[in-house]
């Protein structure tokens, strides 16, 4: 009972802290890439900026536009944020720091994180706004399309490790990270591209393309509801990086430093890569994006499974 409560509270605390830190980091990295300073006024190098933002969002008026679909409008923030909290159940921060090492951990985290698409679509539908509906539709189509190559690359890791438990997969990498094996390097590339699309980041940010859709599915949201979408977005980024770390980068394994430090270093390293991409690459077109998922990534992932399966079983 007590460990359950503690792990839950730790997860909530981590989500809040991590989202704030990531928002600060994103603004700083974008500033450095564009040769600006970024937030500097609140605290040392703007470190208190996320707290100021949170207070501002708490004090914002809650605007409910005319003609919203009330139920889906209200439930959408829950549907994007609750799965994010649930995913933290199986993230292995260190050999000891995992809320519960489910024996189907990989399937659990993949299924829970893909629930977010429901919330996104409900937000798009409920908002009674053309931009939101378009953004929600695009986002749903994109997330479900990239779910397939993502799961196929995860499947290859499961084949290699022979277990679905998150800790088990990390233990299977004690003689070398999975990313160092050629077929899993390919799987990592597929995973990374698909995961970028899953969290609607550049170059796959068609659903929230600011210049054409305002902000996509959360155009009409304000105040705390908007904040929930933001928390979910940034925490999802952490979750996909944590999955990448667990499945391909050896998890908490590493010399000298304690496991949790290694895990966070690797995860935030992947996140920095994602942010770097956001401020470097242009956006791809909708048709290019969809055909890339179905005509390039999925066949490659299927072939990869067939060929490396042959070598594993031979």
């Amino acid at each position, binding site marked *: 009972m007590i460990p359950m409560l503690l792990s839950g509270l730790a997860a909530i605390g981590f989500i809040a802290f991590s989202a704030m830190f990531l928002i600060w980091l994103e603004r700083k990295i974008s500033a450095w890439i564009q040769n600006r300073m970024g937030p500097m006024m609140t605290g040392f190098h703007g470190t208190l900026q996320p707290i100021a933002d949170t207070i501002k969002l708490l004090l914002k008026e*809650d*605007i409910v536009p005319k003609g919203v679909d009330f139920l889906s409008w209200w439930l959408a923030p*829950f549907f994007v944020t609750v799965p994010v909290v649930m995913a933290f159940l199986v993230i292995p921060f260190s050999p000891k720091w995992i809320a519960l090492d489910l024996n189907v951990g990989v399937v659990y985290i993949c299924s829970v994180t893909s629930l977010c698409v429901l919330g996104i679509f409900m937000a798009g539908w409920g908002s009674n706004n*053309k931009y939101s509906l378009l953004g929600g539709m695009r986002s749903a189509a994109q997330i*479900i399309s990239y779910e*397939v190559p993502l799961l196929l690359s995860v499947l290859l890791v*499961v084949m290699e490790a022979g277990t679905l438990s998150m800790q088990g997969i990390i233990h299977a990498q004690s003689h070398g990270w999975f990313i160092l094996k050629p077929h899993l390097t390919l799987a990592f590339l597929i995973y990374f591209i698909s995961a970028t699309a899953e969290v609607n980041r550049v170059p796959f940010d068609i659903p929230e393309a600011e210049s054409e859709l305002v902000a996509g599915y959360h155009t009409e949201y304000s105040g705390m509801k908007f904040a929930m979408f933001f928390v979910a977005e940034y925490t999802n980024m952490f979750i996909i990086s944590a999955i990448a770390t667990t499945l391909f980068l050896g998890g908490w394994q590493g010399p000298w430093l304690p496991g949790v430090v290694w895990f966070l270093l690797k995860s935030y390293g992947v996140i920095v890569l994602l942010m770097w991409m956001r401020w470097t690459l242009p956006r791809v077109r909708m048709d290019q994006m969809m055909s890339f998922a179905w005509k390039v990534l999925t066949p490659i992932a299927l072939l990869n*499974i067939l060929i490396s399966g042959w070598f594993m079983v031979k």
Partner: protein
Amino acid sequence: MISLLPDYIYILFFFFLGIVFVASAFAVSWFLRPRDPSVAKNSPYECGEIIKGDSRGQFNVRYYLYALIFVIFDVEILFTMPWAVVFRQLGMVAYLEMVVFILILALGLFYAWKKGALQWQ
């Protein structure tokens, strides 16, 4: 048979924790925020123009086709997961059976491709 009940209790606990997290954020903001609605403020955003037509209009049927193909592939991958865990122990027969399964699916994908279901226009 291992009891799975503790696992489900953990999952349920995290589910309710998520709900409490969002609801408490909403509750705090409910006490603090101002309330001053007006007609202009509450109209949906459309670049500041007066809204034209219904916002829930027709949309491209392509989205639906992609969703259909996705459902098939998602279920297929879920079927393949247990196989992936044990296929080394089962050996060549299990591998060949999965090859047949995946080839049938690939055939389906190829068919959808040729039929133009994956074409975005």
